[in-house]
């Protein structure tokens, strides 16, 4: 019990998730339903997978704005190359592309010392250019129906996409909490100079995280394309913003050094539940924008109050 109280104190976003669940259950007859929850999980999985990687990157003190473009690149390759390489080959190339973009970002940030925000802002613009060059502005269609069948498949009546998301969430949680890499990610984000002087190789850790988020963004894009049986060059626009939002809602500090996968999961679910609930309640789309924006700011405000209660010095 104490542990639960403790968890809630550390992860106020889960309170918000609970409040949302209660609210929507009361106000919509369709909400509280096993089917709907697996809907929410599938809907959450797209942003959620990226957010797992982004949590590592952000705890490490960086940020990745290029994930949205990576989603489109990986999806386009994975669908577009199927006629030549078959599904497996094309998917492999798609995943590779995410790893490459991540590695490129990581190496540039590491070797040049340019802030990751700038490196990935550049990549966000440039990778989208690559997507357009490759696709020639066209949508691609997966001729093999097995591809889109995978996106719709279920195991024990749980959608496979949701399962993949849950599984990878657990893996990410374990890596962050129990490996040397995970621990050093916190150290580097908490105090980069101290970490460096203690002999932690800052650059490789950063690189690994960028590769991780690149891979997960690619995976997310590919899984999304299995839901569509197609890819479009505009896929993933603004995903970087929503991913960052989810991670921050989950309590990860923007300046690095603090955060958790559990929190991120809460942030991702919060957004997915809000969207799903508002769809069920038929909130007009213009107001959805205002509500989401306001909630983001309000949660940030509450989170800050929480942090301040835990004792801080001069309001610096």
């Amino acid at each position, binding site marked *: 019990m104490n542990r639960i109280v403790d968890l809630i104190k550390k992860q106020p976003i889960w309170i918000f998730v609970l409040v949302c669940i209660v609210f929507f259950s009361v106000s919509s007859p369709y909400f509280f339903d096993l089917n709907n929850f697996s809907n929410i999980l599938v809907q959450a999985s797209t942003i959620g997978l990226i957010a797992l990687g982004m949590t590592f990157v952000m705890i490490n003190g960086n940020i990745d704005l290029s994930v949205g473009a990576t989603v489109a690149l990986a999806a386009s390759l994975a669908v577009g190359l199927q006629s030549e390489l078959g599904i497996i080959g094309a998917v492999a190339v798609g995943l590779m592309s995410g790893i490459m973009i991540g590695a490129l970002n990581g190496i540039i940030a590491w070797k040049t010392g340019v802030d990751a925000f700038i490196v990935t802002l550049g990549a966000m613009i440039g990778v989208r250019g690559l997507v357009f060059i490759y696709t020639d502005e066209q949508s691609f269609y997966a001729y093999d129906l097995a591809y889109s069948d995978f996106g719709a498949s279920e195991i024990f009546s749980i959608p496979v996409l949701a399962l993949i998301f849950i599984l990878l969430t657990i893996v990410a949680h374990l890596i962050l909490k129990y490996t040397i890499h995970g621990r050093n990610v916190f150290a580097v984000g908490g105090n980069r100079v101290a970490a460096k002087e203690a002999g932690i190789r800052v650059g490789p850790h950063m690189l690994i995280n960028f590769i991780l988020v690149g891979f997960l963004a690619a995976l997310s894009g590919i899984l999304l394309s299995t839901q569509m049986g197609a890819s479009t060059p505009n896929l993933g626009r603004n995903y970087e913003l929503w991913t960052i939002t989810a991670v921050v809602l989950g309590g990860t500090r923007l300046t690095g050094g603090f955060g958790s996968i559990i929190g991120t999961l809460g942030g991702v679910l919060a957004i997915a539940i809000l969207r799903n609930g508002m769809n069920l309640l038929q909130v007009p789309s213009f107001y959805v924008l205002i509500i989401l*924006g306001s909630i983001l700011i309000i949660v940030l405000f509450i989170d800050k109050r929480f942090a301040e209660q835990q004792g801080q010095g001069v309001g610096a």
Partner: protein
Amino acid sequence: MKALLGSFRPGSKNSELSPLQFFGKHGISVAFVLCVVIFSLATDRFLSADNFFTVVMQASIIGTIALGVTFVVIGGNLDLSVGSLLSFATVLVVDLHDKVGPGTAIILMFVFTLLIGAVNGYLIGYLRLNSLIVTLGMLSAIQGITLVYSGGKNVDISDQENTWFAFFGREEFLGIPIPALIFIVLGIALQIVLLKSGFGRKIFAIGGNGTAALFSGLRRNRLVFSTYLLSAFTTGCAALILGSRVMGSQNNVGEGYELLVLAGVILGGTSLLGGSGSIIRTVIGVLILAMIQNGLLLLGYPYYTQWLVTWVVIIVAVWLDIAAKRGKLLSTY
């Protein structure tokens, strides 16, 4: 003018410069000249007064916003809401134009735009919430507000021929298009403010070390607040240009501008950590981006190739900039 260009970071020292340092200091100007030369050689249509003004005019909307955002960034914050705010301001001024006349429309537009800037400023300056997330939230909220206001419809000025509102986007003064003039004049004025006024100095201080600034009696809250008012103001000016140029507006007209603005500011060498930066360099940064766009189009490349070039240019420019400060090309961690 030399002083204005030179001292982009208060307190940096002038001494003999190694090639790397030279590039770090003047790299953005070098890149500018390089762009001009390359494109001039590649196409004879590039280097003409007409095209030059086209470039400046195309840069003027993003550029004018970037002027205010530079202050925000030097003050140690970000503003991602300017794209939405531009849509909002443009829709507002165009819609009100026919209802209350251009003069009142402009005044009302500035009032409401500054009001939104004040909300940003209050949340970030006084409540000390993180600027990235607040302005991200505002990006979404302002978009919603704009749509609710317009009912999701395009707005148009019905009598496009006989309104002095055309001044801001369509007329010329001494052969210079007014948008370019607004951009350049505002740029010079703000550069002087940044470097020579107490206000500018204080912005550098809060961005460089907010706590120390607070301990020195600077009203940090108010100063941060005022940077957001300033960015809302320049966004309002950009809305005048945009509304007048198009004589109408869509609700998503400014979508994605926030990142282009930021790209220009960063290209100008303003540090995202705050405490250093320069308006003139931002102006050059924005012009380079506009030139890339214009030049590649003139050369007949598909429009998306400019994105690839922009990618490379941003990273190389910022890299050389910090490499010069570091004294070597590669970083050591």
